[in-house]
């Protein structure tokens, strides 16, 4: 070849007589896909390494030595290559492979969940021989076996394409399923008594090209041709994965991942995938409720409830001023919801507002130079000062894991407990509780670390790693890092659904001191006349459970706008207004990057529920203010004017926080320091009200170093009493060698006594542990 193309990244090949431009290094099948020439395939998946397992993509490829049948998923493009996807030889080969694949495949399509959207069915029609010559008995296995509580495996249907096992190993890093046996007996299997309990197991169901893997929550619920679907965005956490919402007969039946190159690459975590069940849960609020007796909430009409709400707020404004009204929450809604509530608050002069519940970082984190997920996944160095992303933002974990394993990104992790990324980290540094920023500063002095940080772009992923430690430690760490690497950008790992959108739309405290904690403290002092909860449940979510209780009890009136009847509503709300939840309303949401994407209504609201924005607009009107909008589209347009355009990054103008300085906290005589954090399946309302994943909420317990257990004289599963100056609880104990000695870790929201009872909101939480 003497003819060297000007663009070295482009390779010219011929497909079915047409010249197409392929990307250097890509496989033939990827090039033909882009050129609109479909080659049948089962094992090839654009987000995973090719294996050439199923042989269905055989086509005739001529690289100068004459046409030869080759698997197009395994052959990289080469200049001058001639590909024929429709030749007689190609057709015969593809028919032959399909006949072989179907030899042992049961033809139980009429009772198979995949029937109607099955690549094997579709391609048997489009590329198959039409008839089978195979008359012998097919291979038989026990029909579906549970490989996890969420996924069932039917080995008879399996065509051994290696997609699920490759996904588990390559993408998720949880190789809990594998091919076992060999030859005719080869099958996908877990280890005995060790289920496929990956946080990402649902993806294998979506990518399975046959009906071998089915999801328990969807089995036999609908046929694909009865499903309606719209694209939307998952708001279970703030990564903002694109999803397709599928419904039938006005019920949401499943979420499927949609491939977004910037965000989720088609993957979803199991919590996001399966918490659609909460849309139709029994604990949904269908009608406005008012408290008629201390333990009694009675249904009423919207007009009645709104009149009461407006009266309560106007009375409070008149008697005690705007300082006596506070708005908590907004992170569960859309940008439009948050904008409407922020505008209402502006209109009536209410400054006490916070979309976070003392479980994130000060809003100033959004004022720092921001990174995108793509920036993080292509950075030379990612510094994690964040909770375990595998538990809290699973898809961000996948992207960073991919960057570390397949790319050239090095991860420096600061964590009190270790995380799912620890084994992929270049440096994983245990941070003693109360000395996070001191540890970060000490690490920055390491010349090797300094050289690494100077070697290329640096992205800091910052989030609240420990709910029992002040957020100042993280903020001071981030400030130390940005001082050392001025070009570093920050990806805020704030976890709650649309928390970034809510903060940017204005539901943020005017100063860091006026946050949810101080609002509830003021309420506990009796300074709050009306506390409005916009999809917030402080009783379940505020790290300081005692303060949440005192604050709600101390507020004169509590108005709760709630999709599901929460503990805070049941115990303290005077008025409960039913809110539409995701899949019941349209609008936009903002992810951790600031990326705005659309959410779409798919089903009719439950009962008479309304979207949050509508309630805010009506309430404003009842209070004599016109917000100037009458539809969600009006608000979307307003937000677009402020820079929040779907598909792009919302820069906004959040002021950066003040420099934070933290001291180290001396031990107070108690012997252990507490780490509190979340795990994937916790008491979040969408998890607890989705039957399939609610069952996966763990038993809870306290993890400590084995040597600490030995010193205490306890063995695994023994019960211990944990005490602080705030309270005392009893938990089972389990060993965890990842922890430093003197540090204990407790996951919150589990089926155990509530560890939040130990937390007081100080800089650190020291606890005493005794045998029971």
């Amino acid at each position, binding site marked *: 070849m003497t003819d060297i193309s000007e663009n070295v990244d482009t390779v010219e090949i011929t497909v079915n007589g047409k010249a197409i431009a392929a990307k250097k290094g890509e496989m033939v099948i990827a090039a033909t896909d882009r050129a609109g020439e479909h080659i049948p395939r089962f094992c090839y998946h654009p987000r995973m390494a090719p294996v050439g397992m199923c042989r269905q993509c055989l086509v005739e490829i001529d690289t100068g030595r004459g046409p030869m049948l080759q698997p197009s998923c395994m052959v990289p493009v080469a200049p001058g290559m001639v590909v024929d996807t429709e030749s007689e030889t190609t057709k015969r080969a593809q028919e032959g492979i399909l006949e072989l694949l179907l030899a042992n495949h049961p033809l139980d399509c009429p009772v198979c969940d995949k029937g109607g959207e099955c690549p094997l069915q579709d391609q048997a029609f489009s590329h198959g021989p039409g008839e089978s010559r195979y008359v012998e008995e097919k291979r038989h296995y026990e029909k579906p076996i549970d490989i996890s509580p969420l996924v069932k495996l039917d080995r008879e249907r399996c065509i051994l394409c290696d997609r699920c096992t490759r996904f588990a190993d390559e993408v998720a890093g949880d190789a809990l399923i594998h091919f076992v046996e*060999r030859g005719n007996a080869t099958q996908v299997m877990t280890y005995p008594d060790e289920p496929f309990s990956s946080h990402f197991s649902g993806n294998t169901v979506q990518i399975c090209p046959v009906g071998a893997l089915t999801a328990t929550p969807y089995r036999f619920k609908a046929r694909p041709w009865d499903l309606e679907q719209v694209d939307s965005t998952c708001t279970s956490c703030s990564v903002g994965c694109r999803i397709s919402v599928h419904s039938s007969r006005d019920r949401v039946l499943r979420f499927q991942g949609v491939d977004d190159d910037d965000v989720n690459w088609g993957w979803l975590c199991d919590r996001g995938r399966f918490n659609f069940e909460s849309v139709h849960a029994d604990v949904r609020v269908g009608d406005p409720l008012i408290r008629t007796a201390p333990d009694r909430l009675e249904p009423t009409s919207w007009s009645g409830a709104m009149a009461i709400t407006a009266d309560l707020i106007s009375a409070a404004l008149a008697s005690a001023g705007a300082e006596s009204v506070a708005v908590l929450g907004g992170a569960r809604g859309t940008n439009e919801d948050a904008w409407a509530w922020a505008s209402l608050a502006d209109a009536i002069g209410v400054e006490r507002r916070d979309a976070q519940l003392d479980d994130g970082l000060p809003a100033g984190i959004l004022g720092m130079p921001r990174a995108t997920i793509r920036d993080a996944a292509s950075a030379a160095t990612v510094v994690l000062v964040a909770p375990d992303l595998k538990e809290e933002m699973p898809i961000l974990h996948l992207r960073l894991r991919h960057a570390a394993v397949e790319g050239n990104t090095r991860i420096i992790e600061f964590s009190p407990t270790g995380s799912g990324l620890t084994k992929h980290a270049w440096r994983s540094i245990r941070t003693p509780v109360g000395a996070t920023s001191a540890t970060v500063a000490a690490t920055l002095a390491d010349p090797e670390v300094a050289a690494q940080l100077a070697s290329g772009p640096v992205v800091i992923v910052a989030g609240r790693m420990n709910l029992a430690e002040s957020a100042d430690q993280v903020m001071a760490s981030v400030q130390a890092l940005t001082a050392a690497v001025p070009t570093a950008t920050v990806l805020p790992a704030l976890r709650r659904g649309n928390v970034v959108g809510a903060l940017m739309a204005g539901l943020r405290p005017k100063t860091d001191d006026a946050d949810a904690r101080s609002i509830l403290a003021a309420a506990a002092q009796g300074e709050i006349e009306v506390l409005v909860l916009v999809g917030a449940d402080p009783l379940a979510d505020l790290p300081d459970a005692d303060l949440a209780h005192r604050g709600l009890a101390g507020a004169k009136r509590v108005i709760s706008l709630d999709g599901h009847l929460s503990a805070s509503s049941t115990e303290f709300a005077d008025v409960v207004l039913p809110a539409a939840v995701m899949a019941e309303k349209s609008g936009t949401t903002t992810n951790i990057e600031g990326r705005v994407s659309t959410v779409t209504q798919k089903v009719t609201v439950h009962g008479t529920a309304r979207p949050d924005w509508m309630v805010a607009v009506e309430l404003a009107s009842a209070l004599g203010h016109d917000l100037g909008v009458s539809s969600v589209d009006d608000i979307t347009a307003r937000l677009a004017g402020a820079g929040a355009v779907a598909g792009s990054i919302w820069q906004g103008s959040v002021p950066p926080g003040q420099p934070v300085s933290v001291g180290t906290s001396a031990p107070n005589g108690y012997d252990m320091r507490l780490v509190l954090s979340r795990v994937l399946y916790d008491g979040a309302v969408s998890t607890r009200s989705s039957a399939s994943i609610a069952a996966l909420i763990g038993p809870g317990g306290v993890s400590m170093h084995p040597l600490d257990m030995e010193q205490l004289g306890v063995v695994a599963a023994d019960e211990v009493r944990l005490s602080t100056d705030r309270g005392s609880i009893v938990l089972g104990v389990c060993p965890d060698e990842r922890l430093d000695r003197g540090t204990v870790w407790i996951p919150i929201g589990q089926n155990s006594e509530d560890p939040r009872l130990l937390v007081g909101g100080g800089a650190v939480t020291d606890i005493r542990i005794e045998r029971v």
Partner: protein
Amino acid sequence: MARFNDANLTTAHEIIARYPRPKSALIPLLHLAQEQNGYVTDEAMRQIAELVGVTPAEVLGTGSFYEMFRFEPTGRYLINICGTMSCALMGARELLHAAERSLGIHAGGTTPDGLFTLHQAECQAACTEAPCLQVNYRYRFKMTPEGVEQLIDDLRAGKLDDEIPPHGTLARVRQHIPSDRAVGAVDPDDVVGPPAWIPVTVEGAGS
């Protein structure tokens, strides 16, 4: 018992240290487990997974690919009677029946005393010596039903202990590399220059 005993655990660590990546020791450790217990136990697979840093499913997936790893309790003597064409024509069925009668079990079973496991096997590559069988992969050629009965009696009486060690035994003398002769585990990424197996002759040779 099912996990590695102390001596074998030491050996396991030695084996792992021979490789630049712990995962490479997976198959040698499966052999070690089979040698200890006569078969690879579930607990051993879990332990191997911990030792080499993979999941138990990967250990099972790798091990179950190989016919000679056994995952169910297996007798001290594994008798594989060939049932493929040449042996079948020359009377393999009679051999199997004789063995079944003599042991009181069907092919695929293990005697209650844990001494014998009987299998009908595929071709053992000794067609000229048909019918043949193997005891712990040691051949017996041109067997007769009477010969099978005699073999079983001899095995039971311990007369063949010198020739046929218990199932799973790899070697009676374990390989040991003195530390001064050990090359050590070199990570493939750290190898510079031509591969070690290319003899170094003349400067610049091979270019």
